[in-house]
């Protein structure tokens, strides 16, 4: 199956800032692709070049076999975009907003109303967009991006400003979309979001893609430690050192004692035999560790 999006050696700079500095990736049809990275990594710039909103300094982009820049009408009906900053018509209610967008694509008003319900905004249908809360506006913006059933959906930090419940609902919605065969590309700050939703993620920092692949593979490929923590006082640091392997790191911050180990099974068995499991927590590697490993910096979303 062909790639829906092919990006090759994309570059874009603003003055001295290399916002996008040689980015290449491709997205398969029906894939759920995530771009993960801290503020200023270049996610929005990359995404907007792919959508055809900004012109790259160099490099090529192909979406559904077409070039998005300059404005390409063949693509416009087939992509749905939620921009990072919400954008609405002035003084129109939520229902009027989405119906207006729907009609731009020749979509029936009924479909627009359904979409509004899907994102849980029926009771806000008559509220002017300016008076929606941040999360409600975000949901409306996503609904407007999806209303015309696009083949590819681009979402720039869709879960920003959403409460945990709305975030879960959004995840469900996006999974359903993706299962229906649509290609979804999103950017996010949240490692857990990327791990939970994406078939593949690209980890981006300072305009470059540091690593990309399925989240599980990235985590597995990492020579990462497992952190086992116990309530302080359950076991002394010296005792813990005895039952751990020589190169494990033990740390006690006064609340919990943490053993960072590459042989979690051995340590856990030893602890269980001694019935020293008070407050036990085991945390495997996450994308956060991948990021830390790649950049040497803590992830600061």
């Amino acid at each position, binding site marked *: 199956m062909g790639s829906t999006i092919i990006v090759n050696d994309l570059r874009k700079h603003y003055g001295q800032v290399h916002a996008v500095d040689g980015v290449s990736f491709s997205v398969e049809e029906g894939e759920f692709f995530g771009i993960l990275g801290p503020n200023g990594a270049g996610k929005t710039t990359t995404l907007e070049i792919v*959508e*055809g*909103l*900004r012109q790259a300094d160099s490099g090529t982009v192909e979406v559904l076999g077409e070039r998005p820049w300059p*404005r390409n*009408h063949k693509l*416009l*009906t087939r*992509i749905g*975009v939620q*921009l990072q*900053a919400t*954008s*609405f*018509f*002035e*003084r*129109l209610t939520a229902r*009027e907003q989405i*119906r*207006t*967008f729907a*009609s*731009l*694509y020749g979509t029936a008003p009924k479909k627009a109303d359904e979409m509004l319900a899907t994102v849980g905004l029926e009771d806000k249908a008559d509220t002017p967009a300016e008076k929606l809360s941040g999360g409600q506006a975000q949901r409306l913006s996503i609904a407007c991006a999806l209303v015309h059933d696009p083949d590819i959906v681009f979402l720039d930090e869709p879960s920003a400003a959403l409460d945990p419940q709305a975030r879960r609902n959004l995840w469900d919605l996006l999974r359903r979309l993706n299962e229906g065969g649509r290609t979804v590309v999103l950017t996010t700050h949240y490692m857990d979001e990327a791990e939970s939703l994406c078939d593949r993620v690209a980890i981006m920092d300072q305009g470059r893609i540091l690593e990309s692949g399925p989240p599980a593979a990235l985590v597995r490929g990492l020579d990462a430690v497992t952190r086992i923590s116990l309530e302080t006082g359950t076991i002394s640091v010296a005792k813990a050192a005895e039952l751990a392997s020589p190169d494990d790191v033990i740390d006690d911050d006064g609340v919990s004692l943490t053993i960072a180990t590459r042989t979690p099974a051995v340590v856990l068995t030893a602890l269980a035999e001694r019935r020293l499991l008070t407050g036990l927590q085991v945390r495997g590697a996450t994308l956060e560790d991948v990021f830390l490993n790649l950049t040497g910096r803590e992830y600061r979303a």
Partner: protein
Amino acid sequence: MTAFQSLSRAMLFGYLRDKSALFFSILFPLMFLVLFGGVFTGSGVSKSQVVQVGAVPVLDRAAGELGDVLEIKKSNDLAAAQDEVKKGDSVAVVTQQGDALRLYFSAADQVRAATVQGVFRQIVTQANSVGVPQKYTLATQQAEDDSLEVIQYVTPGLLSWAIAMGAAFGAAATLVTWREKRILRRLRLAPVGTGSIVGARVLVSVVIALIQMAIFLSVASLPFFGLQLADAWWMAIPLIIAGTLTFMAIGMVAGGLAKSAEAAAGISNLIVLPMAFLSGSFIPLDSAPGWLQTLSNVFPLKHLNQGMVDVMVRGQGALTALPELGIVLAFGLVIGLIAVKIFRWDSI
């Protein structure tokens, strides 16, 4: 609904729900109309007062019968008396030199003007019937040459200004806020042509201008203001449409240059307000210095104004406004091309 229709709808709702836009395009100019038209014309004369300058023996003889029709006021200053007539404080000025009577009348109030001329014709006829060889003559002359009564002048002028301001502000503000609020960016990703976006805005502006016109003319025609529309007044409609296009283009240029909605409003104000003064929208240019009258020709508003006054109140034929219509459109075309050149989808 097509993209064009739904964008027009979105813009119209956006406008109608914007209290300050409604105020500035409709209520504010109406306040001026009430001020100019109401305050300055309210001072009507009850009895027809005629100013007699110097000795007018014929009138003295007829004074007895005239008492209840005309009120005679004596004066020695012809210029001052004529001014009084122009302002509408008196109906006419009469002078007599030898056998020749001269009557300067104001055409502002047509009924009074006719009455006073009739009365004087009668006086002269009577005087002549006494002395057998007819010797007295009566010459009548309109005191205002071709100037007009306040409401007649103020209505087309203020209407032109209101339309210029509404179109320029509307276009500038929509463009800038749509750009700043990134709605233009978002529309760029939707399958709509620039033509639909601009076309929708044009349609909405023209509709607003025609609403402004309807409200203006209804208010000015109330008996209190007493606007009398000339036969070819409908020619004001194409003039207004042309003016809307031209001033939208000006607003688009302002919106293209401005970084914020406030700046866009400021720039359009800076252009339209001085232009309104210099084009004679508020005060007639008839008595302005010659250089100013010449200068005023470089402003599209002057031509819009001129065309509107000609067809709405001066009673000129519809065709006489065609040159002005052409000039306004030519301005619009040139400014429109500039606007297209500096159009930006977003501020990035």
